[in-house]
């Protein structure tokens, strides 16, 4: 991904490439990257070794991993199209962590094994709950002026 700043983006100006990845955005992308790695690796292990135990929870783990991967890449690119995709991914992430978090509190039986979103991400210091809020705030903060 060394060429993120060299993307030809047609008529969009130079300011449209990379505001999401500058300054504090670099930290956000780094945290998203770590969660992409953690959630995907965890889901892979769960799906490959004990899918039968809790198929729903493990499939949601895989969805979480995919959402984090998409958010990481789209935020790191920061073009207009990828910002739109990032917005969708982060909204899914927010809905996911709130839904899975609430379900795992109400019905622990459905989530016998922890996923990255269980109990609002308690196993990861509640970062999974805070991250989408920061992501949306950052997309808002870096929104193009006349768009």
């Amino acid at each position, binding site marked *: 991904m060394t060429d993120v700043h060299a993307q030809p983006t047609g008529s969009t100006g130079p300011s449209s490439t990379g505001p999401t990845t*500058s300054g*504090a955005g*670099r*930290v956000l992308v*780094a945290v998203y*990257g770590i969660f992409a790695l953690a959630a995907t690796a965890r889901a892979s*292990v769960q799906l490959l*070794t004990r899918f039968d135990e809790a198929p729903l929870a493990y499939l949601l783990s895989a969805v979480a991993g995919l959402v984090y991967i998409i958010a990481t890449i789209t935020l790191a690119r920061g073009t207009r199209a990828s910002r739109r995709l990032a917005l969708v991914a982060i909204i899914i992430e927010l809905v996911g962590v709130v839904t899975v978090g609430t379900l795992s509190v109400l019905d622990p039986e459905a989530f016998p094994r922890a996923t990255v979103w269980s109990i609002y991400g308690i196993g990861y210091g509640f970062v999974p709950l805070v991250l989408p809020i920061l992501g949306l705030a950052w997309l808002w903060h870096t929104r193009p002026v006349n768009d």
Partner: protein
Amino acid sequence: MIDALAYSVVALAGVAVIWGILTAIVNKPPGKAQLLYAAGLEAVTVVQSIIAAAKIIGGFRPVELATTIGYLIGIVILIPIAWFWANVERNRFSGVVLAVAALAVFAMTLRLLMLWTPAG
């Protein structure tokens, strides 16, 4: 895995977290010493993962084998990626990026220590 070595990684990573936050607070990009320190942390982490891998190849079976292997690989790649990512744009946030990666190494190594008990 050797306990003393793992705890060294935890301690070194903890210092790297604090260092990264401090350079951000004083609004500076990470200096040469800090980058060398991160390289040192990476070196110790690599040694630890190699030793752990050797023990697994030698027949040791931790409780969660797949998870353990994932962690052993994960902790090795985090610092180099963060190093690259922190150096593309050098400012106070580079230090935070290094701190975030070091925090992940810190937490994952603690988790590895917990996982490192023989199965069955």
